[in-house]
């Protein structure tokens, strides 16, 4: 990201500097008086049209999910929408054998991503930040999975996990009847197998975020720490890591959101069969699956929404507060 501000255009230079209004402070309110009526209409249009589209397709639908979660509806005509109160939620929490496993798997997904690939990505970033030769070659390799679609990643890893023809079973001789290790079907194994593939991708993503964060660390901090006689680990722990705080926040939010969004990989692998249920899969099964229950599916979506908002709102409040101060 280039932070150097572009040079002034000739148009700007032709006009005398406008008094004591330094750039960076809040915009002068005199601005508005200069706008013609046409300008105002243009502005309204420029802000209004995208906002309308975004709100209609993202926020209205999110709210509709909340509303529908308290109803049953067969999707045919609005008359058949019936208010059922908390019934969908009661059923979900008490009678759905897939719900709690799904919640658990989403949590496991997050914990695994934050405990294994995230520190690994940080570690790689720190090593690659050392002005090392071939740094770009290494980066390209680690980052490669991030540009692939989750669907392609799913197919690539199936070639490794397939019980008959996969690499692992072929290597360890478990590809004969009787000795099968079913990495994709076995409910005790399949989530972990998929998480290896997910971590494969997540590591590169985290590495890039941390590399960008490390570029922003003042080199004099490192020198000062070295002069004080700190070794590499001490410098990292006491000087570098604390200054990476903003990056850590982003990493945390990105990882939580990734864990909640996880879908494609599992769907390609085994369609969310036993052992790999996720909230996102349950929602989708209520649309394209055999049982199309709109209210019930929406109730699951509401659970997903609530968890997301618990993460999104504090993050955005903190981000925007900082921005306002800046």
């Amino acid at each position: 990201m280039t932070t150097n501000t572009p040079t002034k255009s000739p148009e700007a230079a032709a006009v005398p500097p406008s008094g004591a209004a330094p750039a960076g402070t809040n915009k002068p309110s005199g601005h508005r008086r200069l706008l013609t009526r046409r300008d105002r209409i243009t502005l309204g249009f420029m802000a209004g049209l995208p906002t309308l589209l975004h709100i209609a397709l993202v926020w209205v639908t999110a709210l509709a999910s909340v509303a529908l979660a308290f109803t049953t509806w067969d999707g045919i005509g609005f008359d058949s929408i019936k208010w059922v109160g908390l019934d969908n939620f009661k059923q979900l929490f008490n009678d759905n054998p897939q719900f709690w496993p799904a919640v658990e798997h989403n949590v496991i997904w997050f914990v695994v991503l934050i405990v294994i690939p995230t520190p690994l990505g940080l570690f790689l970033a720190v090593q690659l930040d050392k002005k090392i030769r071939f740094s770009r070659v290494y980066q390209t390799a680690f980052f490669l999975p991030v540009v692939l679609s989750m669907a392609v990643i799913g197919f690539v890893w199936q070639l490794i996990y397939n019980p008959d023809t996969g690499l692992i079973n072929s290597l360890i001789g478990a590809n004969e009847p009787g000795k099968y290790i079913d990495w994709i079907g076995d409910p005790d194994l399949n989530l972990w197998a998929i998480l290896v593939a997910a971590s494969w991708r997540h590591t590169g993503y985290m590495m890039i975020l941390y590399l960008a964060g490390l570029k922003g660390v003042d080199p004099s901090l490192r020198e000062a720490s070295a002069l004080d006689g700190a070794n590499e680990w001490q410098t990292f722990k006491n000087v570098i890591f604390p200054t990476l705080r903003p990056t850590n926040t982003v990493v945390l939010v990105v990882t939580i959101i990734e864990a909640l969004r996880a879908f494609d990989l599992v769907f390609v692998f085994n369609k969310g069969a036993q052992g790999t249920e996720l909230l996102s899969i349950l929602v989708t099964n209520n649309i394209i699956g055999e049982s199309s229950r709109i209210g019930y599916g929406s109730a699951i979506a509401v659970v997903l929404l609530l968890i997301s908002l618990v993460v999104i709102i504090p993050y955005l409040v903190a981000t925007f507060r900082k921005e306002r101060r800046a």
Partner: protein
Amino acid sequence: MSTTTATLGKKSAPIRPARILLHLFLAGAALAWIAPLAWAIYAALRPYSETSEKGYVSWPDSLSFDNFTNAFTQSDMSHYFVNTMIIAVPAVLLTLFLSSMVAFYVSRFDFRLNLALLLVFTAGNLLPQQVIITPLYRLYLLIDLPGITMSGKLYDSALGLVLIHVAFQSGFCAFVLSNYMRTLPHELTEAALVDGASVWRQYWQIVLPLCKPAMAALATLLSIWIYNDFFWALVLISTGENMPITSALNNLSGAYFTDPNLVAAGALLTAIPTLIVYFVLQRQFVSGLTLGANKG
């Protein structure tokens, strides 16, 4: 190069072995990272008859691109690539256009609303897609567009996919672009305003050209994201023929599941465009990803 390494070497002579160790580690890890992809390529290059006879872990008798050409022609892949282009090109352009307008408004005019507006856009982009999919699916089924889309509805149409991509991705882009526009000096538009330039001219002729680097980064990122989308098309498209390539892959694998080599070749073919974009525009892609994150 040799002189710099010489001086570096002299300076850091005591830790030289550590460097070598680090290189060994990184090279090993990088190879391990590429291994799954390399394995897929190896499998895709071998005929099914050979691997079923000798097993997959074996030396090849023959390597050829037959699986690739077969996957491409048998599944009519060019048709699905065209589907993707029909969706991705308008979606990327429209997203950049709309989100740059919002960003311009938010960063150049202090109408109090702007922070709230940005908040709505950014939060919307962070929601999991599944939160909104059930009502969205119903909405798409309800909206009749006879004569405009092939299906006569927003459902099962390229237009529907373009709209949801634009609505969803414009959140991220508006956030990034407004941060970028804020770094442009305010005198630029003020001077133009004093000169009597309309708001539209300020946006189109002054601010937008200065945002080229950010726009290029976002365009790269969006292209790959939209190309790689699997979920929206899976739910919002019902006719297999109308699927974009990434989602069509799922049907392809269903049809050819008996030949994993062919499926591997097909999957790799769909990855080629993203890999080309990545290798050619790596800098843009990475800066796009970190643009939004840096500010956090």
